[in-house]
């Protein structure tokens, strides 16, 4: 008997977003990334098109504090004090598609490095790698306003994405991104209505939709993963059903795994901590992709490799 595949005829399509600019577009990136463009749920190619396979970026911090988890530190021990070399290692050795540079040292309550220094770090990382960049501030708006302004200028022409725009703090970061043709990461906290609201606020403020990527907060496995999973599925479904304000590619970070001590604490009943945390991060990333993430930001190279292999199988040919 010939089975009729029950196809969904989705009306909506996720918008395409380009990250990074090659010399052709006025930048210096050796490659750019295109996210989105799909009109079907993740990996279900019988319902529609998935023009771009999910990509994986890696996190680079401009300072590693002493509370940075030991297991995550191991692979980058030799480069941890040099963001440019750290980024280069992520790309050359670990196969990162993108670098998410977090300027945590600008936090006025911690190292309080100046916006000028931060902009210098961005330049160094741009010089060290050919992949596109996300650049995140420290999360304190007053400081980020100045930092992002200088970062935007330092990365002029490179089409970086600045983060994170939040409901209570999105204007200065939007201004910084718009002034040099960059993009913005819109953060919302496990709430589909807030996700939509963020995109409305940002587009009303003048940010074009093709310059927007959504971060709906990926909780770690065991720490609310099911909430994130369902929020992301609902965002994706609403977008496919035609809600234009949610037709924005989604990025998820798997780094919260390292806040969940259960994933790596020494406990003989839970087995080898390194194997556990690597699989924990890979499982968290896989969940995000199955729910609807177009892109991941990851921390451990072995978890990245595991998810990379899975993506290869998931996007590969037919039923």
């Amino acid at each position, binding site marked *: 008997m010939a089975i009729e595949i029950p196809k969904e005829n989705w009306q909506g399509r996720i918008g395409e977003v380009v990250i990074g600019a090659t010399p052709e577009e006025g930048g210096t990136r050796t490659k750019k990334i295109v996210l989105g463009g799909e009109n079907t749920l993740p990996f279900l190619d019988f319902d529609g098109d998935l023009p771009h396979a999910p990509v994986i970026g890696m996190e680079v911090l401009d300072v590693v504090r002493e509370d940075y988890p030991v297991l995550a530190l191991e692979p980058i021990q030799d480069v941890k004090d040099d963001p440019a070399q750290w980024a280069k290692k992520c790309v050359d050795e670990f196969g990162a598609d993108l670098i998410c540079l977090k300027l945590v040292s600008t936090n006025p*309550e911690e190292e309080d490095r100046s916006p000028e220094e931060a902009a210098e770090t961005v330049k160094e990382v741009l010089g060290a790698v050919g992949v596109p960049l996300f650049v995140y501030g420290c999360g304190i708006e007053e400081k980020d306003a100045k930092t992002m302004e200088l970062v935007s200028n330092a990365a002029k022409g490179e089409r970086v994405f600045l983060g994170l725009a939040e409901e209570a703090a999105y204007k200065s970061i939007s201004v910084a991104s718009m002034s040099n043709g960059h993009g913005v990461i819109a953060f919302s906290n496990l709430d589909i209505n807030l996700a939509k609201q963020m995109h409305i606020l940002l587009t009303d403020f003048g940010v074009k939709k093709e310059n927007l990527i959504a971060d709906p907060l990926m909780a770690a496995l065991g*720490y609310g993963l*099911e909430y994130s999973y369902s929020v992301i599925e609902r965002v994706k479904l609403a977008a496919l059903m035609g809600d234009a304000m949610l037709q924005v590619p989604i990025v998820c970070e798997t780094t919260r795994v390292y806040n969940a001590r259960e*994933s790596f604490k020494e406990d003989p009943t839970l*087995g*080898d901590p390194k194997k556990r945390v690597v699989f924990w991060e890979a499982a968290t990333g896989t*969940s995000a992709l199955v729910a609807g993430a177009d892109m991941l930001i990851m921390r451990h190279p072995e978890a990245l490799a595991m998810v990379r292999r899975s993506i290869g199988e998931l996007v590969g040919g037919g039923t």
Partner: protein
Amino acid sequence: MATALEIFQKLPKTNCGDCGFPTCLAFAMQLANKKISLDKCPHVSEEAKEFLEASAAPPIRLVKIGSGDHVVEVGDETELFRHEKKFFHPTAFVLLIDDTASPEGRKQKVAHLKNLTFDRVGQIMGMDMVGVKATSNDPATFASVVQEVASQTDLPLLLVSENPDVMAEGVKAVADRKPLLHAATPENYERMAAVAKENGCSLVVRETTSLDGLADLVEKVKAAGMEDLLLDFGPANMGNMLRNLTIIRRLAVKKKFRPFGYPTFVLAEGATEDAGIITALGTMKYASVIAFDEAEVPMMYPLLTLRQNIFTDPQKPIQVKPGIYEIGSPTPESPVLITTNFSLTYFTVSGDIETSKVPSYLLVADSEGLSVMTAFAADKFNAEIAADLVKETGIEEKVSQKELIIPGQVSRMSGKLQEKSGWDIIVGPRDSSGLPKFLKERSS
């Protein structure tokens, strides 16, 4: 269940009144409400009968594997997405043992099951079944290993062989345990269905060339008298698995396509890590039973946690037990904090306290599983509840000071709480992420 109008379309529409109702529509309405049975109509067609039977059955059959107190239930799912209602029957995990493994190896594997049982947020999680693979393809060897394994565990069993002679011998050893048999194939289905039927066992139907072929084979096995079936299309890779499981679930739930109205079965072979990711994917997307050869603790613990997450009822958040939790090794001088018993709230707060490296006592109030702000708004977390908790837990006897740190977002309750409890109330950070800094500064 079909609507009255859908049923009406299948009736003769003659309004003959032989059923005892004046019109066919009136009869259809009685049928839709299950007030009467279809045989009251002497003129009804075969097509109408089939339609009604099909529409009354659940979209996916509930299959019970095992016997007595040791039964795993799979199937009976009604949703494509967990947020629409919930997923009802957690994916069953099966650890496979090879009948050609050394006696020592087999024993170790069964013993290993104990290491795979965990108590997490008050729920016991672990493996659900044990399988024996007839790699030997020898009836006597298989039967003796099946018997040996069965004697060492109460878990429901899976027997794996495509040779009906081997399977028959294996089943004989454990028939009263009602094992799940894997598998009926296009080559062996007549004899395999007979073995399953004679022994009252459930049976996996395996056809790896196409879903069309699988549907055909299911029809044949059904015609042989089997109803407790599982579907195995032998996934070629992760993408093929995700797509086929989705197609099967959609056809069963949305189209009521009867040949696919059964739970699904996945054999996760291959490298341990890949089998782990396959198991994760199957758990999220519609696999009812997954069997694998290796179950290392550092991988199984996250997988069991993932299953716990995905099969949580979205309407009923997981709660932690109210009471005192010690974080680090607190002393009489350690700070005391209070929060609510929504599991995510508890985990976030306790994680942030751990990060601070300041040993503390955390009081967890019964807010019926609501987060701090929601509970406060719904009056499930207020000064009275907090004051009662302080008294009931006897925290006063554990510490030498009487200072209680409350979440910053409920600072409004501090006056009343101070009055009710007699403790000094310290307003903590608005967000739990501020705790490490807050606690470090207070302790220095």
